[in-house]
């Protein structure tokens, strides 16, 4: 006899897994839509990313003749690592069945694996642009990843655990109060999320100008279904970071364990609302900000690293800061 709670958790996990996959392109489409409106353009429909994905899936793949199996295997691996990471972040409910299999550090490391493979795949065809994108990506990552780890430390020290569902519960607890370190962590998280998702001011997702490309330079040789997988992975990553920030800093509405259907509905609605807010904020921020030079990015990420270190230091000094 399988207990009811487990069935519920399994259902929540399964729903979440497919929900993030289905909705990831929608968030990308929404951000593009809002950006277009802010720039006084009509812009494509919010469903355009789905159409792009389907179009790419149906097209033949043009494979560079200098590439190896790494180039062909990487899109699937990158997409599935990102997908699993996104599936482990509580979006509408905290009682995901497999949430214990990866804590926050592991989720970040899963994204690290995806990035490692992406940077390798970019080098595989042996082109100048691939190397350029890959080299810049690892430079950004080598600062963003430690920053994120320190920010996770700060959050984990407050919550007393690195488990995301437990962190959400700890943030919801009434005795948390207003924390300095939490505020520092929020700013740091946003900076890292912008850098990791190749958004303005670190990278421009709409640009194919060689001086500024990072992410786009890495996927330059990809076409057809491989490009679709890469785009889907990027969309999943954006949704994952938005959900992660929502889950850690704004966990209100998350359906707790052993809750009824109504709680799940509330959780879904709350998540949808949070994603709308996050998407709008991102679009507004990208519209009012200019892209920075590549060598200013370390300063930008250095801020996140220092915020993370400061937040952690404060918590080592006193648990109540």
């Amino acid at each position: 006899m399988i207990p009811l709670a487990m069935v519920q958790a399994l259902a929540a996990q399964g729903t979440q897994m497919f929900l993030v996959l289905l909705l990831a392109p929608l968030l990308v489409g929404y951000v593009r839509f809002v950006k277009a409106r802010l720039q006084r353009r009509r812009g494509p429909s919010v469903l355009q990313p789905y159409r792009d994905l389907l179009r790419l899936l149906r097209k033949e793949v043009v494979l560079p003749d200098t590439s190896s199996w790494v180039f062909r295997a990487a899109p699937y691996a990158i997409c599935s690592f990102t997908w699993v990471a996104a599936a482990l972040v509580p979006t509408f409910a905290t009682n995901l069945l497999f949430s214990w299999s990866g804590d926050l550090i592991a989720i970040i490391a899963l994204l690290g694996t995806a990035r490692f493979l992406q940077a390798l795949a970019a080098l595989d065809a042996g082109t100048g642009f691939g190397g350029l994108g890959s080299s810049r990506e690892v430079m950004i990552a080598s600062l963003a990843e430690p920053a994120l780890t320190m920010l996770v430390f700060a959050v984990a020290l407050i919550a007393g655990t690195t488990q995301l569902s437990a962190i959400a519960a700890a943030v919801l607890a009434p005795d948390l109060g207003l924390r300095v370190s939490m505020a520092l962590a929020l700013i740091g998280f946003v900076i890292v999320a912008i850098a990791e998702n190749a958004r303005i001011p670190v990278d421009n997702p709409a640009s194919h100008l060689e001086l500024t490309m990072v992410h786009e330079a890495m996927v330059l040789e990809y076409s057809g279904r491989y490009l679709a997988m890469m785009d889907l992975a990027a969309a999943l990553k954006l949704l994952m970071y938005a959900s992660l920030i929502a889950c850690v800093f704004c966990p209100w509405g998350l359906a707790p364990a052993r809750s009824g259907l109504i709680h799940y509905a509330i959780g879904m609605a709350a998540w949808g609302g949070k994603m709308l807010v996050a998407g709008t904020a991102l679009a507004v921020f990208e519209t009012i900000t200019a892209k920075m030079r590549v060598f200013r990015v370390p300063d930008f990420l250095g801020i996140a690293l220092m915020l993370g270190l400061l937040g952690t230091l404060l918590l080592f000094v006193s648990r109540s800061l």
Partner: protein
Amino acid sequence: MTQPTLVLACIATLLLLAAGAAFGARAPKATPLVYGACATISLVAFGAALAGGDGTMVLPIGLPWLGAHIRIDRLAATFLALINLGAVGASVYAIGYGRHEHAPARVLPFFPAFLAGMNLVVIADDAYTFLFGWEVMSLASWALVMADGRSADSRRAGIVYLIMATFSALTLLLAFGLLAAQHGGYAFADIRAGTLPPWQAGLVLVLALIGAGSKAGLIPLHAWLPLAHPAAPSHVSALMSGVMTKVAVYAFIRIVFDLLGPASWWWAVPVLTAGGTAAVLGVLHALMERDLKRLLAYSTIENIGIVFIGVGLALAFRANAMPDAAALALTAALFHAFNHMLFKSVLFFGAGSVLVATGERNIERLGGLIRVMPVSAACVLVACMAISALPPLNGFASEWLTFQTILVSPQLPQWGLRLLVPTVGTMLALAAALAAACFVRAYGIAWLGRPRSPCVAGAQEADRWSIAAMAVFAALCLLTGLFPGLVIDALSAAVRQIVAGRLPAQAGLPWLSIVPVADRSSSYDALTVFLFVVGAAVMGSMLVHRLGTRTVRRARTWDCGYPDLGPTTQYTAASYAQPIRRVFGPLLFGSSETVQMPPPGDLSPARIRKHIHDRAWETLYEPLCKAVLATAELFNRFQFLTIRRYLSFVFLALVGLLLALTIWQ
């Protein structure tokens, strides 16, 4: 046969083998015979280490009043297993690789002696036997570094290594001298019985840190390591990097945790600082390096830094009577030491195969090896991912444990540690991220892309023995990554012996997940994550093939509309590291770039030069060398005096001595 007898028998056989190889190295089939025998003996010793059961022995050899004390406790058994597993891998690899050796007589006799020395250090139970084993290990490995003694590089590596090894042995000798002075006995049992006054204990700690740290490659005592490890044949490089540095870690743990008695909290400070510095600077040096084997040697410094961070945290918790937290820290350190042995061996094996296939160690001249050496490429890729601490492989499991250790350290009462630990945590996170960058670069430039020089064209896949060794170790990287709980449980006996604490038993946990701290709910389950990823990838590819098309067309590389550019337009290793060099270089290496641009109309090429300084070498070693040389010059004058002068010196010395004696009384 009891366990110590068996291990001693193995050591004796290895020494006999070394003697035999000295005479018969030129015989046909000597290479496979010697390495095959080494592999078998190491396998037996590995089995003996796993079999369990403590034992002690006293042999009537060595110093007449002391004898040779032998003891295998849980800590020794753990390191015996690590050493001999690494030795099995290196020996099997060398059965194939050794055939390409130019002068087997310069390698074969010393290889078994090297293995014997490392084993002896670990089972020694008195200071004399310990140092004897230590010196056998150092000298045998020095001889192996000098195996290719014709090149100026390896001669320089040899002399630097010899000096540093002597220095390391000297500091350990002083440390043991201080330890033994209390009770007068050199047996470890006598040393344990005494307690030192605090300042002497602190001195022993510093001496042990310098002695073991210089062998392990802690910065700034690392100068010899990136010279010596790459100079040796590749299977020996794997042993030196993967195994011998762990013997140094063992020496530090044995002296500081076992022999030295109760710890004070400040001991953790130098250990943590040294570990954090080594982790960050080691990997940054590796990022700048273009010699494949030197790159791996620098990365060893980084990993040893991570191990020492774990050891330092264990020391801090132990001093504050927090045994369970200390157990977590020490488990993380030992686990990482074991993991590093696995993946660094594969990486050095891979570098050796590249060297055999292309004759090239400079990654700027490699590229596209994955097409000619597909199996080696796959094994090395696994090892690169493991060393970059990526899930679901083993490097991540041990770093995850280290991170969890840092998260329990706000409970430490001392302010110094509370401020130091988060800083060290940042260094650890930085090192992990930079390691990923370093190995994307190393793998992407050497194995992927297009060949950068003709040397790749004639390359062939490595032989079966080499591939077998690489494949098995790469598989072990995956297995220990998927089932970290089993390794943690296997380490628990050694950890409990040293810090008297333990982690919750992991084997009984559902789904083989690991939960390092019982009262926190942090858990990690590599197996589930791995199955999830595999499932998602299979499902994704099936879905994509069903929804879309499967057609593939091979075409010329697009490259943004510039096809048919030569392989020289690819990113090089130097250009790949340029952004990171620009971020960290000016501060840490005093790096700079100068551009020489020819005037307009001049057809000569523009040149860009980069300058990197090894600050440790320039600020510490060069002044030291100069001082030694100057002193030697000074004393050199005494060599060319007249006999009258010598006689007057003797007379003056006699008078001085008599005067001193009179005043003394």
